[in-house]
């Protein structure tokens, strides 16, 4: 007589992820309340951490999951920034309307750009995206309507739309940065938990295998490319709202918006949601520690990233997972046999 099959359940949450979900709430509240218990300097730093985290999550989604190693994401930071400045200055658009419009602009521009760069694969895709960004940087420095080589500034009238009071304004912009960062992490998390996330994870692990199982890899990759472009454009608008000035070199800067972001993701752990958090913290820490030594922090970041890539390609978070089997954002599925109480065994995936 055949044995009855053991009942199986699909498990997603782990004890660590449940504890994390509970613990994160007071942490987020404390961060959101930062303007009331800390100074402007810390606010600026945390806002910067927030948008770098968002950029790192987006780059990780592209490179770590969809296999699209772009070295040209700065093009969307720049396009978003320029769209925000142009619409608020020349078209007198309200700031709160101009930010989503910056995202929309980046999204629309991503379509023709993808048309060119998607013809290249692998490493050639990487350099291709970079060429596109260079072309836009040179283009921006030729167009008089966006200030050509010297760029644009936000007029006091525009920033006063947010609030006439400097302190209130800083607080609102700070909360917006924090909110956008949380939103991006949320979007990435929900995306990875969805059907599309399963497809993405399959592409990450093996593109030919996922294609043979019916994943439309081209369409999935294109969708991810365009979504990240839109989010990056929004962040670009927000970044330059804080900086008050944009120029071609600053807007399309590969060092500021892509190089350090790539280092963060590689060091933290590519292909995980937790990795970019750790990488961002490592970056900020190193930069602040080595603040007196010019660009030495970039050399150190580069050395760490090379060492990580060679010795521990999973990054710091990959190492932690391997050792302790932790997972804070439950995006993977594990098979567990009933009863549920026995299902709490940690597993690598």
């Amino acid at each position, binding site marked *: 007589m055949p044995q009855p099959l053991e009942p199986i359940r699909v498990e997603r949450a782990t004890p660590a992820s449940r504890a994390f979900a509970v613990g994160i709430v007071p942490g987020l509240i404390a961060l959101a309340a930062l303007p009331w218990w800390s100074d402007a300097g810390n606010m600026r730093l945390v806002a910067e951490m927030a948008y770098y985290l968002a950029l790192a999550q987006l780059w990780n989604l592209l490179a770590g999951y969809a296999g699209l190693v772009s*070295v040209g994401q700065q093009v969307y930071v720049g396009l978003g920034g320029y769209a925000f400045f142009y619409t608020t200055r020349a078209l007198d658009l309200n700031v709160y309307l101009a930010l989503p419009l910056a995202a929309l602009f980046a999204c629309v521009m991503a379509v023709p750009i993808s048309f060119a760069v998607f*013809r*290249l694969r692998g490493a050639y895709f990487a350099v*291709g995206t*970079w*060429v596109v960004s*260079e*072309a836009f940087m*040179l283009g921006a420095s030729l167009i008089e309507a966006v200030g050509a080589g010297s760029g644009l500034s936000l007029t006091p009238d525009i920033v006063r739309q947010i609030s006439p009071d400097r302190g209130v304004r800083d607080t609102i912009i700070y909360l917006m940065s924090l909110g956008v960062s949380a939103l991006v992490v949320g979007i990435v998390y929900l995306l990875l938990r969805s059907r599309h996330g399963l497809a993405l994870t399959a592409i990450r692990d093996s593109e030919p295998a996922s294609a043979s199982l019916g994943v439309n890899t081209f369409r999935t990759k294109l969708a991810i490319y365009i979504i990240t472009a839109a989010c990056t454009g929004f962040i670009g608008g927000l970044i330059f709202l804080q900086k008050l000035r944009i120029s071609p070199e600053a807007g399309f800067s590969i060092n500021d918006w892509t190089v350090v972001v790539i280092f963060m993701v590689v060091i933290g752990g590519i292909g995980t949601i937790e990795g970019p958090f750790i990488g961002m913290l490592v970056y900020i820490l190193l930069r602040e520690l080595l603040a007196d030594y010019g660009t030495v922090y970039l050399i150190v970041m580069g050395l760490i990233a090379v060492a990580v890539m060679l010795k521990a390609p999973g990054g710091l978070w990959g190492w932690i997972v391997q050792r302790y089997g932790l997972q804070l954002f439950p995006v993977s599925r594990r098979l567990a046999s009933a009863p549920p109480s026995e299902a709490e065994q940690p597993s690598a995936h």
Partner: protein
Amino acid sequence: MEWINILIQGALLGGIYALFAIGLSLSFGIMRLVNIAHGDLIVLSAYASLVVVDGTGVNPVTSLILVVPLMFAVGYALQRGLLNLTLSGGLLPPLLVTFGISIIIQNTLLQFFGAHTHRLQLGVIETQALRLPGGIAIGLYPLLVFVVALISIGGLQLLFYRTRLGRAFRAASDDADTAELMGIDNRHLYALALGIAMIFTALAGVLFAIRTNFDPASGPIRLILAFEAVIIGGLGSLWGTLLGGVILGLSQAVGAALSPTWQILAGHIAFLIILILRPSGLFPRTRD
């Protein structure tokens, strides 16, 4: 007549772009490695020459006697010590490791030499021109660089198709595993390949620095120009790369003639148009 001169200038510019591209093309052709640090290695060669010139007082071309073996050693060591470790793990490791090396080279140069620009001097030959009837003038130095590019590519063709080493390179390029079964030591072969690529990188670095100002941040644009020449010409074809360089140079010359600020942008636009119309380049050879 003015336009003929512009076109000649642009075509000759293709010589230096082809020299930029040879190293990139070799490392891709033989080990499928896209070296993001390629442009920074070109600039590193220029700085190496600068140090030799300042230290010994020789002219930059003579400094190649030291710079070429040095860059060969750098290439061999880089491949043997680091890059060979990345070749089995898919797309990300070689890409991100060379990317890291690129940032390390740029910022190390910045620490040692500062952000200001340098140039190598070769004297009167830089500005001399051959005057032909009908008002046509050909810059002597760009012509020499173009000839160097022709000789380099011709020499590499001989190496590839007439020598044992070239046969081993082609074998490893076609099927690395089988080549290894036939007794080829791929680790050594790949290291030699990057070493040889660096010989041309050194040549390109010194020759470009004689005409153009350079600083620690000059690498990325050299990589991009090399990359554009390779893609326009088609992967794996060295003569195609030369033609890619010439097409790039011509588009830049035409752009610059319209307005000086358009030079580099015109090259990028030509590249993107060719990419959209002929994704595998004009003369593709290897498949990726």
